[in-house]
């Protein structure tokens, strides 16, 4: 009897510990599903409705009309191109600038840590503040510091965010994200074995050859991580576009297009259809990036 009870208790304890992981995971899972999946289901439902907030009485079932509208209007493809282009250019340029900074700041010199701190600051600044400060105190045609320098060099002032919105957004995003790239690459440089580097210098390999044949291959994994995380963050960049260019000059990304459709157009049905199409497009991109993400992160952990 007593042993029976005891074994029953161990059995229930075993069942408990078997259920424990699920119990631990459940709250996060339920929370995440409620706040991300349910709105998406609602979006699908809205996308099949004829519903304009300005004409609430005209609410009706619309079938695939909204989807036909989305593909007929033809602003989807430019938005995809803008999103891919801005993300790619910003990721590449911030990676290159970040690499340059990482190499410069890896050297030992007076005030190294202060210089490093100065360089990482743009990444810490509130993005809305960065966009405003750049637009009104750097890029401005009249009082912008960059135009002051440009004019001192003998050129005429440039209307950065109006004439070159695409370039301006890339400059701003690069300024913000190069420090992030630098931080990751810097930890890569610091993890380099000093013996290999010494051996290279004994062999008189030269600075450039050492960099190209020893440092860069070693950095490869870090570069992959930097590109992946940079892409995730930059793909959704909204603040600089909303604040600096309002989607002009080829900067109307998917995020901005969706926002415009939803809150300027007031047409819920159409906006929802845009949302659904965007999510499907994103899934394609995400599946590719997620595969590499898993390769970099999970395989590294569970070796």
């Amino acid at each position, binding site marked *: 009897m007593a042993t029976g009870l005891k074994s029953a208790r161990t059995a229930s304890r075993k069942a408990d510990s078997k259920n424990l992981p699920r119990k631990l995971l459940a709250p996060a899972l339920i929370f995440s599903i409620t706040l991300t999946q349910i709105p998406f289901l609602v979006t699908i439902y809205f996308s099949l409705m004829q519903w304009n907030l300005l004409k609430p009485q005209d609410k009706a079932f619309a079938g695939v009309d909204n989807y036909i509208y989305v593909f007929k209007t033809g602003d989807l493809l430019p938005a995809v191109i803008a999103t891919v282009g801005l993300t790619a250019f910003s990721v590449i340029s911030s990676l290159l600038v970040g690499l340059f900074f990482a190499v410069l700041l890896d050297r030992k010199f007076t005030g190294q840590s202060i210089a490093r701190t100065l360089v990482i600051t743009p990444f*810490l600044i509130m993005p809305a503040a960065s966009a405003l400060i750049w637009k009104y105190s750097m890029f401005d045609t009249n009082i912008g510091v960059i135009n002051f320098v440009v004019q001192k060099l003998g050129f005429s002032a440039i209307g950065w965010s109006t004439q070159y919105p695409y370039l301006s957004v890339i400059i701003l995003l690069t300024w913000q994200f190069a420090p992030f790239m630098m931080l990751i690459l810097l930890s890569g440089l610091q993890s380099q074995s000093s013996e290999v580097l010494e051996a290279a210098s004994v062999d008189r390999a030269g600075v450039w050859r050492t960099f190209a044949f020893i440092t860069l291959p070693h950095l490869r994994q870090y570069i992959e991580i930097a590109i992946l995380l940079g892409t995730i963050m930059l793909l959704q960049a909204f603040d600089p576009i909303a604040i600096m260019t309002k989607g002009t000059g080829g900067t109307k990304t998917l995020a901005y297009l969706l926002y415009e459709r939803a809150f300027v157009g007031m047409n819920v049905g159409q906006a929802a259809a845009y949302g659904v199409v965007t999510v499907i497009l994103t899934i394609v991109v995400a599946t590719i990036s997620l595969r590499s993400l898993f390769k970099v992160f999970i395989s590294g952990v569970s070796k």
Partner: protein
Amino acid sequence: MRTTKGKLITGITWLIAVTYFFPVLWMFINSFKTENDAASLTPKFIFTPTLEGFSRLIDRGMGNYLTNSLMASLISTALVLLLAVPAAYALSIRPVVKVQDALFFFISTRFMPAAASILPLFIIFKTLHVLDNIFALSLVYSAMNLPIAIWMMRSFLSEVPMEIIEASRIDGADFETELWSVVLPIVLPGIAAVALICFIFSWNEYFFSVLLTSANAKTTPPFLASFVDGRGQFLAVLSAASTVAALPVILAGWFAQKQLVRGLAMGAVK
């Protein structure tokens, strides 16, 4: 010869670093100017500093916006930790059967463009009468940060040596003891890193705050944009507001650089 070259490189490095930092420095300098000085066509480095810009922030009620930002950031960070630590535990130390699937699901929600979910969220919030509500906004921020937090936390938990946990289990530690007295003390720096990053992301968030809040619950980032004025001068006051808004994160980032890097790289960088 060698030292001259070294000094030259150091000099160039410093020049580049200061130039790179210049927009931040300029924002700080401008925040102590009068509007006229800030709008000078020739950038003014020498001027009589004034706190006028900062005192106008008080008049504009910046305190409320900062309080809202603080509340949204603290509430969402706390909630995220509460959800992410157990979830990460179930994905590392006491794994569920489908770890990869769960990890995949969480991170895939992060890829979903915020813009695609904003409209239904807006209408759901409106129906539930929680538009312009700081707690509702905090929930959205929690959902936004949860996947990253779970991934980061998982990598920190994976580093806890299994031998220590097994030893405590042999000593008869139940789950609570294992969590509270064995694992959590080891990963405390990791939790701090996750908290710091969640706080920063919520504090800096612009998009949801613009669209889901108005008079009551508006946070600082959209407030900054409200200084832009088509007619008058506003650079000094905008700079003052931006300085105040950005300062907490700048200071936190400066002092916790190491945690920041490890957290942001989701543990892939040591």
